């Protein structure tokens, strides 16, 4: 009798870690073997660089690596914040970001609403096929086209000159004031179609009965758009907007590298480009890593803030 109770005690203890571990290994060992290369990828190319972030606190020397380099703690950060261009780089980053949010965010939404109103299926498909196309053209080619079009003899330069009081005879890229408009406008040209897909998907999911009810209530087309269509896609708009705000300081360096020159540096040099230049061109690894860590932390903070706001507002969250 006593023995039985003890046995039951052992049997009930199925929640013990070692028991669950053994059972899991027996059942899923082949799964763990399968994902070894996946884990190796993340360890090697994602987490090892995170360990490399320690360089930000070192006077890093490439010959001796992280274990051999001297620790200077926050010196790199001090140098980074004291850089005469620090403020300019941040302002330029925010300027490009905010401009592309203001002009680039509403464009695909308005476009999707208008596409949704097209009644001929074939015309709708044609519009979609053509406007998605630029998304697939490589950035190098896009920037090559921008450079030729806004060059001294370029087609965009001549259009601008036609409307301008004082025509120029050099590339518009040499004008620092024109850089942000060129950067953002080309971005919108390349992506408004593609970015509209998600809104079109939301629009096609709107319940037809809502429209029928609105019509019975005597709502015209405009009324239907305001009272049915827009509220239905508002959750999508909200989450996209919050996500976009989360990436406000993460303007990439690739397009900058392809468009920057000595004349527009004043408005084209942004945080990520500074990191690229300091790290890979001047080989100041410690400083560039510190700047990169600063950027990563700020980005992460923005995304996290955006995520918790989204959770409160719309119940939609990334994590």
């Amino acid at each position, binding site marked *: 009798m006593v023995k039985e109770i003890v046995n039951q005690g052992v049997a009930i203890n199925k929640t013990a870690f070692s028991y669950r571990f053994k059972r899991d290994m027996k059942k899923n060992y082949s799964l763990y073997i*399968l994902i070894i290369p996946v884990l190796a990828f993340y360890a090697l190319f994602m987490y090892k660089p*995170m360990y490399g*972030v320690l360089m930000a606190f070192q006077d890093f020397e490439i010959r001796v690596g992280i274990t051999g380099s001297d620790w200077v703690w926050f010196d790199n950060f001090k140098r980074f914040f004291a850089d005469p261009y620090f403020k300019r780089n941040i302002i330029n980053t925010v300027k490009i970001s905010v401009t592309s949010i203001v002009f680039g965010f509403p464009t695909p939404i308005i476009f999707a609403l208008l596409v949704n109103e097209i009644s001929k299926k074939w015309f709708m498909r044609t519009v979609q096929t053509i406007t998605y196309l630029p998304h697939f053209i490589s950035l190098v080619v896009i920037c090559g086209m921008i450079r030729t079009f806004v060059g001294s*003899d370029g087609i965009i330069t001549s259009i601008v000159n036609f409307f301008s009081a004082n025509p120029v005879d050099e590339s518009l890229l040499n004008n620092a004031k024109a850089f942000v408009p060129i950067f953002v406008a080309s971005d919108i040209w390349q992506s408004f179609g*593609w970015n509209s897909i998600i809104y079109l998907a939301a629009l096609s999911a709107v319940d037809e009965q809502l429209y029928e009810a609105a019509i019975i209530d005597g709502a015209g087309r405009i009324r239907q758009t305001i009272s049915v269509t827009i509220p239905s896609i508002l959750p999508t708009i909200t989450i996209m907007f919050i996500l976009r705000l989360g990436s406000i300081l993460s303007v990439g*360096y690739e397009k900058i590298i392809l468009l920057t020159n000595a004349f527009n540096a004043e408005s084209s040099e942004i945080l990520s480009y500074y990191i*690229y230049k300091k790290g890979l061109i001047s080989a100041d*690894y410690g400083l560039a890593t510190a700047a990169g860590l600063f950027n990563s932390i700020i980005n992460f903070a923005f995304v996290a803030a955006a995520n918790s706001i989204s959770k409160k507002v719309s119940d939609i969250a990334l994590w």
Partner: protein
Amino acid sequence: MKRKSFSRLLFEIFNAIFMSVLMLITLYPLLYVIFASMSDANELLKHGGKLLYKPLEFTLAAYKLAFKDNSIVTGYKNTSIILVIGVPISMYLSAVGAYFLSRKDVMFKKIITKLIMFTMFFSGGLIPFYLTVRDLKMIDSLWSLILPTAINTYNMIILRTAFEGLPPGLEESARMDGAGHMTVLFKIIIPLSKATLAVIALYYGVGVWNSWFNASIFLQRGNAKWPLQLVLRQILIQNDTASMTAGTDLGDMERVAESIKYAVIVIATMPVLCIYPFIQKYFTKGVMIGAVKG
């Protein structure tokens, strides 16, 4: 058929016109490049920056010059090698990873999922990434363009969502028959998800085709291994057409260089433009799957 009101008709007409203008704005820059690439260099210069409606004095001279040195051909070759080796590796790793993430009763799934998702929001940054690849002795090897970017976490999540959406019945009955993870993944899940896998393969393919930055920092010795986009950057952004215009009069060089650039853009974009209309709907599908679970 229901009659449309006058205001509705008016709206539809204006909308159609507006859409046509948008299509024109999207397409015209590409058409301009095509026309310019087939135009005579001198005529193009005289024409200045005015609009083109057809090639001026049709000629393919710029194309001949573009192929004069074989950097473009080499670029195509290298990009093809990366595609042929890289995309299957990416697909294998993503499918296996997505399968793992879609399991329900696996002990370490939660923590591994968290560790993988975390990398979408935080990274070591450019310099530690560069030094990691350097430490692995991948500099100047095409592997540097394949392995460090083999998995795109976002693509893997799309696959996971697709795997999770499969009807569980088939898998359960296979398990009853004693099938292990390998069998379930390769004999059931993958054959059932062919469409989504094709979308993801296309995403990876486009990614490889368009990428140039990693090549610019990892391939440091000479241009023999450069992928197409890096060759293009040399020509289009850094204005290096010397090897193509060699033998041209000095005065002509700049003019010819412009035409060559247009021709190079066409040569490098044609494959995408030609296959794009046929695969467009698959890309769209990928966005939809991704949108279901942000």
